[in-house]
């Protein structure tokens, strides 16, 4: 079920009403109902993959309990490894197996390898990378004694499958989300209204901006070698806004929906296009994924050598490459990660100024924002091109054509005046940057009729300028 579908428009109010009619005092029943609703929500894609979610949940639930129970450190480690092997194994089989077989065959030019080690004819379960990372963080945290394992299976199943964030995050930590299933939920009108506003804002981003941008992006990037510089540059910028609005729109709807049920999810985006550097970009883009990799990959690697630039850089390259590969089994994703690592490591090169050791990031914070965006945005564009390309050849073609100043005749916006809606988005987000989302700004400034008029205008825009229905890009990850 897609958030931008009619089915979700029916599903949400029904689940909302039943959930609150059950009553905040009956937490068990509320949780049971949430679990059924979440499984139904997921099962509409493919009910067979529900078994995978249940299996993953059970493995990590049991592993968590046994990690705590075991007195012997080796046993603890063993149960942790069982959990990690299970999660990474599932990910590998469904997401990376075919890629490795294919690449192995290409590398050694073994034409008959595909017959010896046949590839698997399987589809990638929606949201697999999101929920496996969420459950894996649970056992890791239990092992590190950051949290105590839950004994309540129902709560744990809810934590893994909570429908607002099940298929595309935010990737929640157990210490943030799990306790919320044990607490009594309060019917808070202010939060619920804010959730609804966030849903409208997320739908605007997804249906109006992302889906319209997709028209031009798909058109131009389908034949990059026939396009001029301006067209390719235009498509690259639009692709940034497409993927940003697609994914952050999803996150907004997820956070808004969770609010309506009395849950607080983590913020996943924070106006990434105003980043001063690539380092800062990753603190504003897919924040929960960045934090996950920082805590469970980067910090453990550099733990002993926090002050050593070389070690930090090695850690950075490993982490960013894995972040790249997390997005999918393709060389472009790996290069995407490596490119991030290269730019961030350059930004971190220590520069001695007197007795102080500074770096480029420091100087960037001292410059006017517009200047720093002129530095960071082109780098983000290059990343977007690598990310969007089917292979590295295509990425290089696009980049080389952009910098060759090949005329785009005739240059065509393709989506016409709808490009202005992106300008509207940017202005609204920047103008209300201190708020969680632009509609939050309205609450204290405008009377109810004005606020409602604005909501109606946005609903009108969503219908009037809806792009062709596209699946959320991040579902495929």
């Amino acid at each position, binding site marked *: 079920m897609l958030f931008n579908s*009619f*089915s979700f428009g*029916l599903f949400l109010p029904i689940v909302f*009403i039943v959930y*609150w*009619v059950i*009553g*905040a*005092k009956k937490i068990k029943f509320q949780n049971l109902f949430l679990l059924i609703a979440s499984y139904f929500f997921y099962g509409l894609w493919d009910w067979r993959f529900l078994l995978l979610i249940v299996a993953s949940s059970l493995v990590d639930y049991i592993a968590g309990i046994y990690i705590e129970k075991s007195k012997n450190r080796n046993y603890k480690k063993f149960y942790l490894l069982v959990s990690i092997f299970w999660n990474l194994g599932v990910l590998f089989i469904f997401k990376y197996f075919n890629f490795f077989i294919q690449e192995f065959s290409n590398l050694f030019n073994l034409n008959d390898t595909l017959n010896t080690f046949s590839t698997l004819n399987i589809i990638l379960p929606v949201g697999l990378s999101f929920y496996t990372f969420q459950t894996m963080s649970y056992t890791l945290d239990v092992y590190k004694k950051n949290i105590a394992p839950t004994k309540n299976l129902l709560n744990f199943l809810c934590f893994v499958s909570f429908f607002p964030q099940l298929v595309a995050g935010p990737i929640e930590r157990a210490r943030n989300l799990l306790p919320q299933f044990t607490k009594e939920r309060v*019917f808070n*009108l202010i939060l*619920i209204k804010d959730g609804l506003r966030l849903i409208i804002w997320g739908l605007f981003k997804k249906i109006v901006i992302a889906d*319209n941008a997709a028209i031009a992006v798909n058109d131009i990037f*389908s*034949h990059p070698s026939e396009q001029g510089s301006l067209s390719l540059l235009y498509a690259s910028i639009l692709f940034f806004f497409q993927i940003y609005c697609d994914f952050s729109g999803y996150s907004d709807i997820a956070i808004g929906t969770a609010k309506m049920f009395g849950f607080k999810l983590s913020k996943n985006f924070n106006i990434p296009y105003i980043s001063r550097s690539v380092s800062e970009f990753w603190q504003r883009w897919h924040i929960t994924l960045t934090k996950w990799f920082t805590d469970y990959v980067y910090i453990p690697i550099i733990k002993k050598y926090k002050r050593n630039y070389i070690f930090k850089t090695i850690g950075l390259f490993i982490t960013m490459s894995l972040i790249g590969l997390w997005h999918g089994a393709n060389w472009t994703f790996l290069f995407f990660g490596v490119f991030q690592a290269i730019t961030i490591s350059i930004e971190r090169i220590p520069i001695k100024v007197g007795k102080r050791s500074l770096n480029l990031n420091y100087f960037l914070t001292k410059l006017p924002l517009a200047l720093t965006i002129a530095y960071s945005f082109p780098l983000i564009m290059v990343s977007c091109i690598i990310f969007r390309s089917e292979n590295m050849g295509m990425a290089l073609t696009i980049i080389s054509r952009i910098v060759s100043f090949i005329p785009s005749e*005739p240059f065509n916006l393709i989506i016409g005046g709808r490009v202005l809606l992106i300008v509207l988005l940017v202005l609204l987000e920047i103008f209300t940057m201190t708020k969680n989302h632009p509609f939050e700004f309205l609450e204290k400034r405008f009377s109810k009729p004005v606020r*409602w008029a604005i*909501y*109606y205008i946005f*609903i009108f825009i*969503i*219908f*009037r*300028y*809806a*792009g*062709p*229905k596209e*699946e959320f890009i991040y579902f495929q990850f």
Partner: protein
Amino acid sequence: MLDQKKNSSISSFKKEFLHFVKICSIFFIPVIITYAVLEYSVLQIPTSYKLTGEYLHNHAEEVEVIFLGSSQVKNSINPKFLEKKSINLSSTSQHHNTDFKILKQTRDRLINVKTVVLEISYGHFELPHNTKYFWKNNLFLKYYNVNTFDRSTYFKDQFIYLSRPGFFSSQLIQYYFKDSKTYNINEFGFDENNFDGKFKKHNYNDEKLLKTNVKIERKAYLNLFEYNVNYFYKMIEFCKNEGFEIVITSPPIYKSYNELRNPDILRRRDSIVNIISEKYDGIHFFNSENDPEIKTRHFRNENHLNPDGAEFYSKKMSDFLNSID
């Protein structure tokens, strides 16, 4: 004391909950009413789908020939000029999988059909089939009573405006506020005013037209080829089992488009055409891609005919269909 506290908290929750439901209703009722008006207004527009659906409903038993395919067939066949009673069930971006579903699900209504015309244009075997999210699925269900969703349907699937709000908003503005006269769709669902396009803009001047950019898919998608070909064979088998005459067509295209085609895609397509002609008896081919009788003034753009071109081509098709009896 505890009970009293509990009761008061429950009643305050109830009060807040009911207040919220009331506010939501007040907020969303105008949205729902507006939507109902939009849906109703869209249903009044005499679109090609609507009129084709009405024709299907009223003349099902008389139809002898069905045309299926993409916009190239849609724009090149005006059933008005065919001697045999025909229905054109093709549409823009419609691929073989949708064709097949339409064919199978209209079979029990189109009981006197003798000939099915299928399209294999240049890129057909290397373009992805329509997905279950194809927005026209709603139109096919509403107007043709054909389920192309690959699942059971429910009331929402009948909503036309919701299938593509942006597109239908523009249609509404065009029809009700700009110029409803531009709609000149005949009883067969063919738009007889559909001249506007690149060729008209350049006054059908070859010299100018040959200098313009041509939009053509040149990228090969070999991963799709095998699946699409096998799917097409299934369609042929079905038609054979039903006792239909099969005509495979490829409508006219302009020379600049012809020249830009990827020779590998073309070669693969032609090899399948050869295989089909060897494998199955009695299949007729009507390939007009290089038809010298089709002139520049017959085109709307490089790969679509205008209504004049459609008239010319439909008459030729009619003669061809008569000749295979």
